[in-house]
Protein backbone atom coordinates (compact mmCIF):
# COMPACT_ATOMS: atom_id res chain seq x y z
CA UNK A 1 0.00 0.00 0.00
CA UNK A 2 2.74 2.41 0.98
CA UNK A 3 4.78 1.85 -2.16
CA UNK A 4 1.86 2.54 -4.52
CA UNK A 5 1.15 5.74 -2.62
CA UNK A 6 4.67 7.06 -2.94
CA UNK A 7 4.56 6.25 -6.62
CA UNK A 8 1.45 8.40 -7.05
CA UNK A 9 2.92 11.39 -5.28
CA UNK A 10 6.26 11.20 -7.09
CA UNK A 11 4.59 11.27 -10.50
CA UNK A 12 2.38 14.13 -9.38
CA UNK A 13 5.25 16.32 -8.22
CA UNK A 14 6.79 17.52 -11.54
CA UNK A 15 3.46 18.81 -12.90
CA UNK A 16 2.86 20.79 -9.71
CA UNK A 17 6.20 22.55 -9.87
CA UNK A 18 5.10 26.22 -9.92
CA UNK A 19 2.72 25.61 -7.05
CA UNK A 20 5.45 23.93 -5.06
CA UNK A 21 7.45 27.10 -5.31
CA UNK A 22 4.48 29.07 -4.01
CA UNK A 23 4.20 26.67 -1.12
CA UNK A 24 7.87 27.02 -0.21
CA UNK A 25 7.59 30.79 -0.07
CA UNK A 26 4.49 30.68 2.10
CA UNK A 27 6.07 28.27 4.49
CA UNK A 28 9.24 30.27 4.81
CA UNK A 29 7.12 33.31 5.59
CA UNK A 30 5.55 31.35 8.42
CA UNK A 31 8.87 30.14 9.80
CA UNK A 32 11.39 27.52 8.91
CA UNK A 33 9.22 24.64 10.03
CA UNK A 34 10.49 24.59 13.59
CA UNK A 35 6.92 25.18 14.69
CA UNK A 36 6.14 21.68 13.44
CA UNK A 37 8.19 20.41 16.34
CA UNK A 38 5.05 21.17 18.34
CA UNK A 39 3.19 18.49 16.37
CA UNK A 40 5.77 15.89 17.32
CA UNK A 41 6.28 17.02 20.91
CA UNK A 42 3.58 15.01 22.76
CA UNK A 43 4.59 11.75 21.06
CA UNK A 44 8.28 12.44 21.53
CA UNK A 45 7.78 13.24 25.23
CA UNK A 46 6.04 9.97 26.21
CA UNK A 47 8.34 8.02 23.91
CA UNK A 48 11.43 9.67 25.37
CA UNK A 49 10.43 9.23 29.01
CA UNK A 50 9.04 5.72 28.85
CA UNK A 51 11.03 4.08 26.02
CA UNK A 52 14.24 5.87 25.08
CA UNK A 53 15.30 6.76 28.62
CA UNK A 54 14.72 3.22 29.96
CA UNK A 55 16.55 1.84 26.93
CA UNK A 56 19.62 3.97 27.70
CA UNK A 57 19.31 2.89 31.35
CA UNK A 58 19.24 -0.78 30.33
CA UNK A 59 22.49 -0.34 28.44
CA UNK A 60 23.95 1.51 31.43
CA UNK A 61 22.85 -1.14 33.98
CA UNK A 62 24.36 -3.86 31.82
CA UNK A 63 27.89 -2.72 32.76
CA UNK A 64 27.26 -2.98 36.51
CA UNK A 65 26.74 -5.64 39.09
CA UNK A 66 23.61 -4.51 40.94
CA UNK A 67 21.01 -6.19 43.15
CA UNK A 68 18.47 -3.42 42.58
CA UNK A 69 18.73 -2.06 46.14
CA UNK A 70 22.31 -1.45 47.28
CA UNK A 71 25.21 0.23 45.52
CA UNK A 72 26.16 -0.89 42.01
CA UNK A 73 29.72 -1.91 41.26
CA UNK A 74 31.23 -1.59 37.77
CA UNK A 75 31.45 -4.95 36.06
CA UNK A 76 32.92 -4.16 32.66
CA UNK A 77 31.85 -6.74 30.12
CA UNK A 78 31.44 -9.52 32.69
CA UNK A 79 27.64 -9.57 32.32
CA UNK A 80 27.96 -9.94 28.56
CA UNK A 81 30.53 -12.66 28.96
CA UNK A 82 28.09 -14.51 31.21
CA UNK A 83 25.32 -14.31 28.57
CA UNK A 84 27.41 -16.55 26.32
CA UNK A 85 28.89 -18.82 28.97
CA UNK A 86 26.28 -19.36 31.73
CA UNK A 87 23.91 -22.14 30.75
CA UNK A 88 20.57 -20.59 31.83
CA UNK A 89 21.39 -17.49 29.81
CA UNK A 90 22.56 -18.92 26.51
CA UNK A 91 20.05 -21.75 26.71
CA UNK A 92 17.29 -19.12 26.77
CA UNK A 93 18.60 -17.72 23.51
CA UNK A 94 18.94 -21.17 21.93
CA UNK A 95 15.39 -22.02 23.02
CA UNK A 96 14.05 -18.89 21.38
CA UNK A 97 15.73 -20.01 18.14
CA UNK A 98 13.96 -23.36 18.43
CA UNK A 99 10.70 -21.45 18.92
CA UNK A 100 11.28 -19.75 15.53
CA UNK A 101 10.65 -23.17 13.96
CA UNK A 102 7.23 -23.32 15.63
CA UNK A 103 6.30 -19.62 15.47
CA UNK A 104 7.59 -18.95 11.95
CA UNK A 105 8.67 -21.91 9.81
CA UNK A 106 5.66 -24.16 10.47
CA UNK A 107 2.94 -21.46 10.42
CA UNK A 108 4.27 -19.78 7.28
CA UNK A 109 4.58 -23.13 5.48
CA UNK A 110 1.14 -24.27 6.66
CA UNK A 111 -0.33 -20.88 5.81
CA UNK A 112 1.21 -20.93 2.34
CA UNK A 113 0.00 -24.45 1.58
CA UNK A 114 -3.53 -23.80 2.80
CA UNK A 115 -3.73 -20.42 1.11
CA UNK A 116 -2.67 -21.89 -2.24
CA UNK A 117 -5.08 -24.80 -1.89
CA UNK A 118 -7.94 -22.55 -0.81
CA UNK A 119 -7.36 -20.09 -3.64
CA UNK A 120 -10.07 -21.49 -5.85
CA UNK A 121 -12.45 -22.31 -3.01
CA UNK A 122 -15.02 -19.63 -3.68
CA UNK A 123 -18.15 -18.65 -1.80
CA UNK A 124 -18.26 -15.43 0.14
CA UNK A 125 -20.27 -16.60 3.16
CA UNK A 126 -17.99 -19.55 3.82
CA UNK A 127 -14.95 -17.33 3.38
CA UNK A 128 -16.02 -14.86 6.05
CA UNK A 129 -16.85 -17.54 8.61
CA UNK A 130 -13.53 -19.30 8.02
CA UNK A 131 -11.63 -16.05 8.20
CA UNK A 132 -13.29 -15.14 11.50
CA UNK A 133 -12.56 -18.54 13.02
CA UNK A 134 -8.93 -18.49 11.90
CA UNK A 135 -8.50 -15.06 13.44
CA UNK A 136 -9.80 -16.04 16.89
CA UNK A 137 -6.41 -17.09 18.33
CA UNK A 138 -4.91 -13.77 17.22
CA UNK A 139 -7.54 -11.78 19.13
CA UNK A 140 -7.69 -13.50 22.53
CA UNK A 141 -4.93 -12.72 25.06
CA UNK A 142 -1.88 -15.00 24.71
CA UNK A 143 -2.32 -15.85 28.38
CA UNK A 144 -5.75 -17.27 27.51
CA UNK A 145 -4.27 -19.34 24.70
CA UNK A 146 -1.68 -20.67 27.14
CA UNK A 147 -4.34 -21.64 29.71
CA UNK A 148 -6.38 -23.44 27.05
CA UNK A 149 -3.32 -25.35 25.82
CA UNK A 150 -2.05 -26.18 29.30
CA UNK A 151 -5.35 -28.01 29.72
CA UNK A 152 -5.00 -29.60 26.26
CA UNK A 153 -1.57 -31.02 27.26
CA UNK A 154 -2.51 -32.21 30.76
CA UNK A 155 -2.73 -35.97 31.42
CA UNK A 156 -6.54 -35.79 31.10
CA UNK A 157 -6.43 -33.35 28.21
CA UNK A 158 -7.47 -33.58 24.59
CA UNK A 159 -4.01 -34.40 23.22
CA UNK A 160 -3.74 -37.59 25.26
CA UNK A 161 -7.40 -38.35 24.63
CA UNK A 162 -6.92 -38.18 20.86
CA UNK A 163 -3.68 -40.20 20.94
CA UNK A 164 -5.38 -42.92 23.01
CA UNK A 165 -8.38 -42.95 20.67
CA UNK A 166 -6.17 -43.65 17.64
CA UNK A 167 -4.11 -46.15 19.64
CA UNK A 168 -0.89 -44.15 19.64
CA UNK A 169 -0.45 -43.91 23.39
CA UNK A 170 -1.21 -46.27 26.21
CA UNK A 171 -0.05 -44.11 29.10
CA UNK A 172 -0.90 -40.54 29.97
CA UNK A 173 1.89 -38.19 29.10
CA UNK A 174 2.39 -34.80 30.77
CA UNK A 175 3.60 -32.96 27.70
CA UNK A 176 4.61 -29.75 29.48
CA UNK A 177 6.28 -31.57 32.38
CA UNK A 178 8.68 -33.66 30.33
CA UNK A 179 12.15 -32.34 29.46
CA UNK A 180 12.00 -33.73 25.93
CA UNK A 181 8.51 -32.53 24.97
CA UNK A 182 8.02 -29.27 26.90
CA UNK A 183 9.70 -26.92 24.41
CA UNK A 184 7.96 -28.28 21.29
CA UNK A 185 4.68 -28.26 23.24
CA UNK A 186 5.15 -24.57 24.07
CA UNK A 187 6.13 -23.98 20.44
CA UNK A 188 2.89 -25.51 19.16
CA UNK A 189 0.92 -22.99 21.25
CA UNK A 190 2.69 -20.33 19.20
CA UNK A 191 1.89 -22.23 16.01
CA UNK A 192 -1.77 -22.22 17.05
CA UNK A 193 -1.76 -18.48 17.67
CA UNK A 194 -0.18 -17.32 14.40
CA UNK A 195 -1.11 -19.91 11.74
CA UNK A 196 -4.59 -18.53 11.07
CA UNK A 197 -3.24 -15.01 10.81
CA UNK A 198 -0.55 -16.05 8.30
CA UNK A 199 -3.08 -18.04 6.27
CA UNK A 200 -5.52 -15.15 5.96
CA UNK A 201 -2.75 -12.67 5.20
CA UNK A 202 -1.41 -14.90 2.42
CA UNK A 203 -4.92 -15.59 1.10
CA UNK A 204 -5.52 -11.87 0.75
CA UNK A 205 -2.15 -11.59 -1.00
CA UNK A 206 -2.99 -14.36 -3.45
CA UNK A 207 -6.34 -12.76 -4.24
CA UNK A 208 -4.46 -9.63 -5.33
CA UNK A 209 -2.33 -11.48 -7.92
CA UNK A 210 -3.40 -10.69 -11.49
CA UNK A 211 -5.35 -13.78 -12.68
CA UNK A 212 -3.97 -13.35 -16.22
CA UNK A 213 -0.56 -14.39 -14.85
CA UNK A 214 -1.98 -17.79 -13.89
CA UNK A 215 -3.80 -18.09 -17.23
CA UNK A 216 -0.59 -17.34 -19.12
CA UNK A 217 1.24 -20.00 -17.09
CA UNK A 218 -1.49 -22.54 -17.86
CA UNK A 219 -1.25 -21.76 -21.58
CA UNK A 220 2.50 -22.30 -21.39
CA UNK A 221 1.71 -25.72 -19.96
CA UNK A 222 3.13 -25.03 -16.52
CA UNK A 223 2.24 -27.54 -13.82
CA UNK A 224 1.04 -26.61 -10.33
CA UNK A 225 4.55 -26.64 -8.90
CA UNK A 226 6.04 -24.55 -11.70
CA UNK A 227 3.16 -22.10 -11.37
CA UNK A 228 3.74 -21.88 -7.62
CA UNK A 229 7.46 -21.20 -8.03
CA UNK A 230 7.21 -18.81 -10.95
CA UNK A 231 4.16 -16.77 -9.95
CA UNK A 232 2.68 -17.34 -6.50
CA UNK A 233 5.88 -17.28 -4.48
CA UNK A 234 7.46 -14.15 -6.03
CA UNK A 235 4.14 -12.27 -6.03
CA UNK A 236 3.61 -13.06 -2.34
CA UNK A 237 7.04 -11.75 -1.39
CA UNK A 238 5.74 -8.78 0.58
CA UNK A 239 3.18 -10.79 2.56
CA UNK A 240 5.75 -13.50 3.28
CA UNK A 241 8.24 -10.96 4.60
CA UNK A 242 5.52 -9.56 6.88
CA UNK A 243 4.58 -13.01 8.24
CA UNK A 244 8.21 -13.92 8.83
CA UNK A 245 9.06 -10.60 10.50
CA UNK A 246 6.08 -10.50 12.85
CA UNK A 247 6.40 -14.14 13.89
CA UNK A 248 10.19 -14.08 14.42
CA UNK A 249 9.80 -11.11 16.76
CA UNK A 250 7.01 -13.00 18.55
CA UNK A 251 9.32 -16.02 18.98
CA UNK A 252 12.41 -14.14 20.16
CA UNK A 253 10.45 -11.86 22.50
CA UNK A 254 8.01 -14.50 23.78
CA UNK A 255 6.96 -14.22 27.41
CA UNK A 256 3.22 -14.59 28.04
CA UNK A 257 2.81 -18.17 26.86
CA UNK A 258 5.89 -19.48 28.66
CA UNK A 259 5.04 -17.60 31.86
CA UNK A 260 1.60 -19.24 32.05
CA UNK A 261 2.38 -22.68 30.64
CA UNK A 262 5.74 -23.65 32.19
CA UNK A 263 7.53 -20.76 33.96
CA UNK A 264 10.56 -21.86 31.95
CA UNK A 265 10.64 -25.38 33.31
CA UNK A 266 11.14 -28.22 33.77
CA UNK A 267 14.72 -27.20 34.52
CA UNK A 268 15.69 -24.69 31.86
CA UNK A 269 14.00 -26.63 29.09
CA UNK A 270 11.57 -23.86 28.10
CA UNK A 271 13.36 -20.78 29.41
CA UNK A 272 13.31 -17.86 26.92
CA UNK A 273 15.18 -14.52 27.11
CA UNK A 274 12.07 -12.53 28.11
CA UNK A 275 11.29 -14.77 31.06
CA UNK A 276 14.95 -14.99 32.07
CA UNK A 277 15.21 -11.18 32.11
CA UNK A 278 12.10 -11.04 34.30
CA UNK A 279 13.35 -13.69 36.72
CA UNK A 280 16.86 -12.25 36.93
CA UNK A 281 15.51 -8.79 37.75
CA UNK A 282 12.64 -9.50 40.07
CA UNK A 283 13.40 -12.88 41.62
CA UNK A 284 17.18 -13.33 41.62
CA UNK A 285 17.95 -9.60 41.86
CA UNK A 286 20.71 -9.56 39.25
CA UNK A 287 19.62 -6.40 37.46
CA UNK A 288 22.93 -5.88 35.64
CA UNK A 289 22.92 -9.42 34.31
CA UNK A 290 19.28 -9.11 33.21
CA UNK A 291 20.12 -5.87 31.40
CA UNK A 292 23.02 -7.44 29.48
CA UNK A 293 20.70 -10.20 28.30
CA UNK A 294 18.14 -7.54 27.32
CA UNK A 295 20.72 -5.68 25.23
CA UNK A 296 21.72 -8.92 23.52
CA UNK A 297 18.05 -9.64 22.81
CA UNK A 298 17.51 -6.20 21.24
CA UNK A 299 20.62 -6.65 19.08
CA UNK A 300 19.58 -10.15 18.07
CA UNK A 301 16.15 -8.99 16.91
CA UNK A 302 17.73 -6.21 14.84
CA UNK A 303 20.40 -8.44 13.31
CA UNK A 304 17.76 -10.92 12.18
CA UNK A 305 14.94 -8.56 11.18
CA UNK A 306 16.80 -5.83 9.27
CA UNK A 307 18.14 -8.14 6.50
CA UNK A 308 14.68 -9.72 6.12
CA UNK A 309 13.16 -6.26 5.67
CA UNK A 310 15.76 -5.49 2.99
CA UNK A 311 14.72 -8.67 1.21
CA UNK A 312 11.14 -7.43 1.09
CA UNK A 313 12.11 -4.08 -0.37
CA UNK A 314 14.26 -5.40 -3.23
CA UNK A 315 13.09 -5.17 -6.87
Amino acid at each position, binding site marked *: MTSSNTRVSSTARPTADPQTRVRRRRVSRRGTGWSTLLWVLPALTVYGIFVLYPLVETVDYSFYKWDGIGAATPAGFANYQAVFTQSALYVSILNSFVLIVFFTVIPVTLGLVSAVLMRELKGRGVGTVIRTLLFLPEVIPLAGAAIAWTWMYSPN*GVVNQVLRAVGLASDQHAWLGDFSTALPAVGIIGTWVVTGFCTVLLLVGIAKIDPSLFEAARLDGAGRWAEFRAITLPELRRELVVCVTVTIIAALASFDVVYIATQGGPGYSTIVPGLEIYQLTFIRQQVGQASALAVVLVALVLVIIVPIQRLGRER
Partner: protein
Amino acid sequence: MNMAETTTARTTRILILTLLIVFTVLPLLSMITTALQKQGTFPSGLSLPTHPQWGNFVDAWNAADFPALLKSSTLIVLGVVPAAVVFSTLAGYGLAASRLPGRSLVYGLFILGLTLPAEALISPLYYELQSMGLLNSRWALILPLLGLFMPFGVFWMRAAFQGLPAELSEAAEIDGASSWQMFRRVKLPLVLPSLSSLTILFFLWTWNQFLLVIVLINNPADSNMAGALATFQGEHGTNVVLLCAGALIIMAPSLVIFFAFQRQFVRALLQGAIK
Protein backbone atom coordinates in the same frame (compact mmCIF):
# COMPACT_ATOMS: atom_id res chain seq x y z
CA MET B 1 -9.73 -37.20 -16.22
CA ASN B 2 -10.07 -33.48 -15.83
CA MET B 3 -13.24 -33.86 -13.79
CA ALA B 4 -11.62 -36.42 -11.51
CA GLU B 5 -8.65 -34.15 -10.96
CA THR B 6 -10.75 -31.19 -9.91
CA THR B 7 -12.76 -33.39 -7.54
CA THR B 8 -9.62 -34.69 -5.81
CA ALA B 9 -8.18 -31.22 -5.69
CA ARG B 10 -11.39 -29.95 -4.17
CA THR B 11 -11.50 -32.74 -1.61
CA THR B 12 -7.89 -32.08 -0.61
CA ARG B 13 -8.65 -28.41 -0.20
CA ILE B 14 -11.69 -29.03 1.96
CA LEU B 15 -9.77 -31.59 4.01
CA ILE B 16 -6.87 -29.24 4.72
CA LEU B 17 -9.23 -26.44 5.55
CA THR B 18 -11.19 -28.68 7.91
CA LEU B 19 -8.03 -29.81 9.69
CA LEU B 20 -6.90 -26.21 10.08
CA ILE B 21 -10.25 -25.19 11.55
CA VAL B 22 -10.41 -28.19 13.90
CA PHE B 23 -6.89 -27.32 15.11
CA THR B 24 -8.01 -23.72 15.69
CA VAL B 25 -11.29 -24.48 17.43
CA LEU B 26 -10.36 -27.55 19.49
CA PRO B 27 -8.67 -25.82 22.47
CA LEU B 28 -11.57 -23.40 22.86
CA LEU B 29 -14.13 -26.19 22.49
CA SER B 30 -12.31 -28.22 25.14
CA MET B 31 -12.47 -25.22 27.48
CA ILE B 32 -16.20 -24.82 26.94
CA THR B 33 -17.08 -28.47 27.54
CA THR B 34 -14.83 -28.58 30.62
CA ALA B 35 -16.30 -25.39 32.05
CA LEU B 36 -19.73 -27.04 32.07
CA GLN B 37 -18.69 -30.14 34.05
CA LYS B 38 -19.37 -30.65 37.74
CA GLN B 39 -16.83 -28.86 39.94
CA GLY B 40 -14.55 -31.17 41.92
CA THR B 41 -14.62 -33.85 39.22
CA PHE B 42 -11.72 -34.65 36.89
CA PRO B 43 -13.25 -34.59 33.42
CA SER B 44 -11.48 -35.51 30.20
CA GLY B 45 -10.42 -32.79 27.80
CA LEU B 46 -13.37 -33.32 25.51
CA SER B 47 -16.47 -34.82 27.09
CA LEU B 48 -20.05 -33.90 26.46
CA PRO B 49 -21.45 -32.36 29.66
CA THR B 50 -24.51 -34.50 30.41
CA HIS B 51 -25.75 -32.07 33.05
CA PRO B 52 -24.29 -28.72 32.01
CA GLN B 53 -23.43 -26.72 35.13
CA TRP B 54 -24.09 -23.17 33.98
CA GLY B 55 -23.66 -22.09 37.60
CA ASN B 56 -19.90 -22.52 37.16
CA PHE B 57 -19.86 -19.29 35.22
CA VAL B 58 -21.55 -17.50 38.12
CA ASP B 59 -18.91 -18.87 40.50
CA ALA B 60 -16.12 -17.87 38.14
CA TRP B 61 -17.67 -14.40 37.68
CA ASN B 62 -17.58 -13.91 41.46
CA ALA B 63 -14.16 -15.52 41.97
CA ALA B 64 -12.62 -13.23 39.36
CA ASP B 65 -14.56 -10.19 40.64
CA PHE B 66 -15.46 -9.61 37.03
CA PRO B 67 -17.24 -6.22 37.38
CA ALA B 68 -14.17 -4.67 39.06
CA LEU B 69 -11.95 -6.22 36.40
CA LEU B 70 -14.07 -4.89 33.57
CA LYS B 71 -14.00 -1.43 35.12
CA SER B 72 -10.23 -1.52 35.57
CA SER B 73 -9.56 -2.74 32.02
CA THR B 74 -11.89 -0.09 30.63
CA LEU B 75 -10.18 2.67 32.61
CA ILE B 76 -6.78 1.51 31.32
CA VAL B 77 -8.04 1.48 27.73
CA LEU B 78 -9.53 4.96 28.17
CA GLY B 79 -6.24 6.16 29.58
CA VAL B 80 -4.16 4.76 26.74
CA VAL B 81 -6.05 4.57 23.47
CA PRO B 82 -7.46 8.11 22.88
CA ALA B 83 -4.19 9.80 23.89
CA ALA B 84 -2.10 7.34 21.90
CA VAL B 85 -4.22 7.90 18.77
CA VAL B 86 -4.08 11.71 19.14
CA PHE B 87 -0.31 11.79 19.78
CA SER B 88 0.38 9.45 16.84
CA THR B 89 -1.82 11.45 14.51
CA LEU B 90 -0.25 14.79 15.42
CA ALA B 91 3.29 13.44 15.11
CA GLY B 92 2.48 11.53 11.92
CA TYR B 93 1.11 14.70 10.36
CA GLY B 94 4.02 16.79 11.56
CA LEU B 95 6.58 14.39 10.17
CA ALA B 96 4.75 13.89 6.88
CA ALA B 97 4.13 17.58 6.17
CA SER B 98 7.01 19.42 7.74
CA ARG B 99 10.30 20.60 6.42
CA LEU B 100 11.68 20.54 9.92
CA PRO B 101 15.47 20.28 9.84
CA GLY B 102 16.47 16.83 11.05
CA ARG B 103 12.98 15.40 10.74
CA SER B 104 14.35 12.17 9.32
CA LEU B 105 16.41 11.92 12.48
CA VAL B 106 13.27 12.31 14.62
CA TYR B 107 11.44 9.79 12.45
CA GLY B 108 14.39 7.40 12.68
CA LEU B 109 14.27 7.69 16.46
CA PHE B 110 10.67 6.45 16.40
CA ILE B 111 11.43 3.68 13.89
CA LEU B 112 14.17 2.46 16.22
CA GLY B 113 11.42 1.44 18.63
CA LEU B 114 9.44 -0.61 16.09
CA THR B 115 11.20 -3.90 16.79
CA LEU B 116 12.08 -3.18 20.42
CA PRO B 117 10.88 -5.97 22.74
CA ALA B 118 9.27 -4.55 25.91
CA GLU B 119 11.39 -7.01 27.92
CA ALA B 120 14.38 -4.77 27.22
CA LEU B 121 12.80 -1.94 29.22
CA ILE B 122 11.15 -3.58 32.20
CA SER B 123 13.92 -3.26 34.79
CA PRO B 124 14.52 0.50 34.30
CA LEU B 125 10.79 1.12 33.88
CA TYR B 126 10.16 -0.50 37.24
CA TYR B 127 12.66 1.74 39.04
CA GLU B 128 11.60 4.81 37.07
CA LEU B 129 7.93 4.38 37.97
CA GLN B 130 8.85 3.58 41.55
CA SER B 131 10.72 6.89 41.86
CA MET B 132 7.72 8.67 40.33
CA GLY B 133 5.52 7.03 42.96
CA LEU B 134 3.33 5.49 40.29
CA LEU B 135 4.19 1.84 40.78
CA ASN B 136 1.18 -0.42 41.37
CA SER B 137 -1.28 2.12 40.06
CA ARG B 138 -2.97 2.06 36.65
CA TRP B 139 -0.71 4.93 35.60
CA ALA B 140 2.20 2.50 35.77
CA LEU B 141 0.57 0.73 32.84
CA ILE B 142 -0.99 3.66 31.00
CA LEU B 143 2.10 5.87 30.65
CA PRO B 144 4.60 3.22 29.47
CA LEU B 145 2.05 1.82 27.01
CA LEU B 146 1.58 5.30 25.55
CA GLY B 147 5.32 5.49 24.97
CA LEU B 148 5.58 1.95 23.61
CA PHE B 149 2.76 2.54 21.09
CA MET B 150 4.39 5.64 19.60
CA PRO B 151 6.77 3.96 17.10
CA PHE B 152 4.01 2.03 15.39
CA GLY B 153 1.45 4.83 15.71
CA VAL B 154 3.75 7.49 14.26
CA PHE B 155 4.92 5.16 11.49
CA TRP B 156 1.30 4.28 10.65
CA MET B 157 -0.13 7.81 10.64
CA ARG B 158 2.85 9.30 8.80
CA ALA B 159 2.33 6.73 6.04
CA ALA B 160 -1.38 7.62 5.95
CA PHE B 161 -0.71 11.37 5.58
CA GLN B 162 2.01 10.81 3.02
CA GLY B 163 -0.40 8.74 0.97
CA LEU B 164 -2.61 11.78 0.39
CA PRO B 165 -2.13 13.55 -2.96
CA ALA B 166 0.23 16.54 -2.77
CA GLU B 167 -2.11 18.77 -4.82
CA LEU B 168 -4.49 18.76 -1.88
CA SER B 169 -2.25 20.76 0.41
CA GLU B 170 -1.13 23.05 -2.41
CA ALA B 171 -4.71 23.98 -3.22
CA ALA B 172 -5.51 24.60 0.43
CA GLU B 173 -2.39 26.68 0.96
CA ILE B 174 -3.24 28.89 -1.97
CA ASP B 175 -6.62 29.42 -0.33
CA GLY B 176 -4.67 30.68 2.67
CA ALA B 177 -5.43 27.82 5.06
CA SER B 178 -3.32 27.78 8.21
CA SER B 179 -1.50 24.60 9.01
CA TRP B 180 -4.02 23.74 11.72
CA GLN B 181 -6.95 24.31 9.35
CA MET B 182 -5.19 22.22 6.74
CA PHE B 183 -4.81 19.42 9.25
CA ARG B 184 -8.28 19.63 10.76
CA ARG B 185 -10.43 20.39 7.71
CA VAL B 186 -8.55 18.91 4.77
CA LYS B 187 -6.33 16.03 5.80
CA LEU B 188 -7.77 14.54 8.97
CA PRO B 189 -11.10 13.55 7.37
CA LEU B 190 -9.18 11.70 4.65
CA VAL B 191 -7.16 9.52 7.02
CA LEU B 192 -10.12 8.43 9.16
CA PRO B 193 -9.96 4.80 7.93
CA SER B 194 -6.31 4.52 9.00
CA LEU B 195 -7.21 6.22 12.26
CA SER B 196 -9.97 3.72 13.06
CA SER B 197 -7.71 0.75 12.28
CA LEU B 198 -5.07 2.22 14.57
CA THR B 199 -7.67 2.63 17.33
CA ILE B 200 -8.63 -1.05 17.05
CA LEU B 201 -5.00 -2.19 17.18
CA PHE B 202 -4.19 0.01 20.19
CA PHE B 203 -7.31 -1.26 21.95
CA LEU B 204 -6.36 -4.89 21.34
CA TRP B 205 -2.75 -4.40 22.44
CA THR B 206 -3.80 -2.60 25.63
CA TRP B 207 -6.49 -5.12 26.49
CA ASN B 208 -4.12 -8.06 25.95
CA GLN B 209 -0.93 -6.53 27.40
CA PHE B 210 0.59 -9.01 29.80
CA LEU B 211 4.27 -8.43 30.61
CA LEU B 212 3.91 -4.88 31.95
CA VAL B 213 0.96 -5.89 34.13
CA ILE B 214 2.92 -8.76 35.65
CA VAL B 215 5.87 -6.50 36.41
CA LEU B 216 4.28 -3.19 37.33
CA ILE B 217 0.88 -3.96 38.86
CA ASN B 218 0.56 -5.76 42.17
CA ASN B 219 -3.09 -5.34 43.01
CA PRO B 220 -5.41 -7.51 40.88
CA ALA B 221 -8.04 -4.75 41.09
CA ASP B 222 -5.80 -2.47 39.00
CA SER B 223 -5.05 -5.17 36.43
CA ASN B 224 -6.30 -5.65 32.88
CA MET B 225 -7.95 -8.77 31.46
CA ALA B 226 -4.73 -10.51 30.40
CA GLY B 227 -3.14 -9.98 33.81
CA ALA B 228 -6.32 -11.24 35.45
CA LEU B 229 -5.88 -14.55 33.63
CA ALA B 230 -2.55 -15.09 35.38
CA THR B 231 -4.08 -14.19 38.76
CA PHE B 232 -7.02 -16.50 38.20
CA GLN B 233 -4.75 -19.34 37.11
CA GLY B 234 -2.62 -18.82 40.21
CA GLU B 235 -5.62 -18.95 42.53
CA HIS B 236 -7.74 -21.64 40.88
CA GLY B 237 -5.23 -23.57 38.78
CA THR B 238 -6.02 -26.82 40.56
CA ASN B 239 -9.77 -26.57 39.92
CA VAL B 240 -9.72 -27.10 36.18
CA VAL B 241 -13.48 -26.72 35.75
CA LEU B 242 -13.54 -23.32 37.45
CA LEU B 243 -10.30 -22.33 35.66
CA CYS B 244 -11.87 -22.97 32.25
CA ALA B 245 -15.06 -21.14 33.20
CA GLY B 246 -13.05 -18.19 34.55
CA ALA B 247 -10.73 -18.00 31.56
CA LEU B 248 -13.75 -18.01 29.23
CA ILE B 249 -15.45 -15.23 31.19
CA ILE B 250 -12.29 -13.13 31.26
CA MET B 251 -11.81 -13.64 27.50
CA ALA B 252 -15.51 -13.02 26.75
CA PRO B 253 -15.25 -9.23 26.26
CA SER B 254 -12.47 -9.70 23.66
CA LEU B 255 -14.63 -12.25 21.85
CA VAL B 256 -17.80 -10.13 22.00
CA ILE B 257 -15.98 -7.06 20.68
CA PHE B 258 -14.24 -9.13 18.02
CA PHE B 259 -17.49 -10.64 16.75
CA ALA B 260 -19.22 -7.26 16.80
CA PHE B 261 -16.47 -5.54 14.79
CA GLN B 262 -14.94 -8.53 13.00
CA ARG B 263 -14.68 -6.86 9.60
CA GLN B 264 -12.85 -3.88 11.08
CA PHE B 265 -10.66 -6.16 13.21
CA VAL B 266 -9.58 -8.36 10.32
CA ARG B 267 -8.92 -5.32 8.16
CA ALA B 268 -6.94 -3.57 10.91
CA LEU B 269 -4.83 -6.63 11.69
CA LEU B 270 -4.06 -7.31 8.04
CA GLN B 271 -3.23 -3.67 7.26
CA GLY B 272 -1.30 -3.36 10.48
CA ALA B 273 0.88 -6.22 9.37
CA ILE B 274 1.42 -5.07 5.79
CA LYS B 275 2.59 -1.55 6.64
